[in-house]
């Protein structure tokens, strides 16, 4: 059941990305390009997803386990640290250059052509390299508390 609902969630996510036009890199870059022909679509996509999720979080907050009896997420990290800011800047730079973030890149992988396959391959390589990079950053500039932020 758990795997079926995960498949359903992934399917809704992918279908939503397609319907919203988020697999079109021109729309994403059109939103980021404030000096070009600005495209506000992404704001409507975000709004459509975020507003109902605000209600969903209120339901989630009242529950100890999920409707399938699984543990709910908790103990969210609170710390705004270097890795969050640096990582988001790097991610954003890649997002702007190609007009792709992980969701749409995977959603269009099966029909988008070799460009999507190459992007996803490079993205996977970046993900595989990150634990080593985290360790390197930690050694170069350890946080004052001596804790890792992961």
């Amino acid at each position: 059941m758990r795997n079926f609902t995960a498949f359903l969630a992934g399917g809704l996510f992918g279908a939503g990305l397609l319907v919203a036009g988020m697999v079109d890199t021109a729309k994403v870059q059109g939103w980021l390009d404030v000096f070009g022909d600005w495209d506000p679509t992404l704001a409507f996509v975000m709004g459509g997803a975020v507003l109902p999720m605000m209600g969903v979080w209120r339901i989630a907050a009242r529950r100890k386990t999920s409707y399938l009896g699984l543990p709910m997420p908790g103990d969210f990290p609170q710390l705004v640290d270097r890795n969050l800011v640096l990582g988001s800047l790097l991610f954003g730079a890649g997002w702007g250059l190609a007009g792709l973030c992980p969701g749409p890149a995977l959603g269009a992988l099966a029909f988008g052509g070799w460009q999507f396959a190459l992007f996803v391959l490079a993205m996977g390589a970046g993900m595989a390299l990150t634990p080593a990079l985290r360790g390197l950053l930690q050694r170069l500039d350890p946080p004052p508390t001596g804790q890792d932020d992961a």
Partner: protein
Amino acid sequence: MHQDWIWGLVGGLMIGAGAAVYLLLNGRIMGASGILGGLIDGSGRDTTPERFAFLAGLIVVPPLLVPLYKVVDTHVSSNIGVLILAGLLVGIGTRLANGCTSGHGVCGISRLSLRGIVATVFYLLGGGLALVIARHGLGLI
């Protein structure tokens, strides 16, 4: 073109529905980079089947809907260097920040998470800067 925002809203609601299913039924946060990254670096070992099931839905369902459209134009770059550099940056950045547009953006902002909001500010900033410099400054893309 002028109806794009309506489809954006409809698609956004579907994305929100996916996030709601994953949270309320699976007890998990729907973040594309985290779900994939956890499989790649082994940090998600105890939830491997669930992650594969989510990715299967994400990869298999959109192509089933593609025939409903006349054309799905992705306008994706064919510049190999740009694709590899952008992919590496997205992979490293999302794992370093522990989230992307779905995890920090959709799920974090709706939870009013400070980390989600800060991440979103910085990836928008990084994206806007990189695009404007590469397109209008250097004429690369």
